[in-house]
């Protein structure tokens, strides 16, 4: 036991000292759900809250990785230390994966002010990996200024990134099949900034018009979502993108780090609570719970009341 806490202390202090190998190792431990990963995550908690977390999501091939490459260049120009976590899908058959996002960021490999880590979704649905929130905390505690998250190619209902990132950039591009189909309303809902990439394509203006029309259908506040057009391969529009991210962050958190951290931690707890509750409820096969469920089946009890009852009978004592 003490050996393990020594181990965690050692890794933590090396990670806090900026040792890349220790951060990389800590991420593996958290990602593998080793018990020490829990201990590590707990230990870094007091040091989190400095980094800004930017999520980048959008359909496969829209240019997420290429855009991140250009974003890194821009942010490095502002002297920010930038970390990227890129999540790729895993094969449902072998569980293996080829993690290729960082290929597009190759020009930054040797920059000590850039840290890039590829993660496999490991079967997790929702566009990220199950561990990504904790991975972000580790990077934050290691002192990186910005953490950019690339989700797997999404665009349908993979909105999980909204629970992790402070600011969500949703990116679309012309020529990905039917433009409107490539990106669904659900994913537009989470956008703080919308990007129309591949603006060098003749069809880009049409995509932009369609996106703006879709935004009009959304609630009042969301009409203020800025739409930025970019050519990621040429780095054009990136300055505008960075300033759009900055002003959205400003209005969301009043430029206050503590408000941002409060919001992030609330999202983390809500996510964990949902998972834990699901686990509890599914595992509860007591006769009491069976009778509540039977009442639902027979139409004598609505879902909401049943859920409250299920929680109460089982956990009333500790709630």
């Amino acid at each position, binding site marked *: 036991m003490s050996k393990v806490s020594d*181990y965690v202390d050692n890794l933590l202090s090396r990670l806090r000292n900026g040792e890349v190998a220790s951060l990389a190792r800590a991420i593996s*431990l958290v990602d593998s759900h080793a*018990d020490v990963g829990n201990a590590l995550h707990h230990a870094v908690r007091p040091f989190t809250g400095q980094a800004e977390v930017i999520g980048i999501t959008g359909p496969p091939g829209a240019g997420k990785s290429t855009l991140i490459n250009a974003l890194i260049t821009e942010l490095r120009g502002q002297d920010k230390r930038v970390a990227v976590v890129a999540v790729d899908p895993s094969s449902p058959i072998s569980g293996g994966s*080829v*993690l*290729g996002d960082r290929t597009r960021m190759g020009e930054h490999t040797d920059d000590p002010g850039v840290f890039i880590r590829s993660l496999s979704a490991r079967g997790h649905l929702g566009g990220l990996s199950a561990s990504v929130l904790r991975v972000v905390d580790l990077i934050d505690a290691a002192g990186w200024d910005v953490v950019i998250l690339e989700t797997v190619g999404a665009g349908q209902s993979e909105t999980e990134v909204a629970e992790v990132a402070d600011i969500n950039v949703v990116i679309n591009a012309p020529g990905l099949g039917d433009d409107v189909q490539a990106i669904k309303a659900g994913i537009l809902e989470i956008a703080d900034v919308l990007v129309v990439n591949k603006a060098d394509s003749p069809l880009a203006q049409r995509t932009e018009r369609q996106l703006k029309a879709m935004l009009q259908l959304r609630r009042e506040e969301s009409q203020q979502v800025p739409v930025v057009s970019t050519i990621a391969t040429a780095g054009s529009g990136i300055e505008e993108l960075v300033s759009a991210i900055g002003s959205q962050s400003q209005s969301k958190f009043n430029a206050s780090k503590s408000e941002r951290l409060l919001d992030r931690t609330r999202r983390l707890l809500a996510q964990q609570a949902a998972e834990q509750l699901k*686990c509890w409820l599914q595992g509860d096969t007591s006769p009491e719970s069976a009778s509540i469920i039977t009442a639902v089946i027979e139409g004598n009890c609505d879902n909401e009341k049943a859920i409250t009852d299920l929680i109460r009978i089982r956990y009333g004592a500790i709630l």
Partner: protein
Amino acid sequence: MNQPLTVTSHNLEGSPARALITKIGLDGHDRGSRIVAAYLRDAGMEVIYTPPWQEIQSVVQLALQEDVDLIGISSLATDHLIIPEMMAALREAGLDSVEVFVGGIIPEQERPMLLKAGVRAIFGPGSQRDDIVECAKGLAAESREKKQQAFGG
């Protein structure tokens, strides 16, 4: 069912092995490395795949940041001649626990030089998929064993 903060193990048991499949030097023929990347993926590994022409320092950075267990280098021309330099750079960066294997066309008389530099296995043309996968799995397991020891596990 509360998850208390008890710690019983800190190995990576059960999580997929991580491999870097890459090419150093001037040769751009990446068919071999693509095939091996696919073999390892299909064997359940997480493969960081890069285009050819990586600098030695980039390989070190990739291995560090991605915390890989093994590195596979494909060499079809003379790229393998700089592998000893790469091995030294890995050691310099403290990556002693990362195992390295090489595939491609390596002249018989140059193999001892690679093995002496720390390369663990060499696969020539016509190597069987199963042999490569088997070897990679074994090396990944050894790497993890070493990493755990290095941290006093």
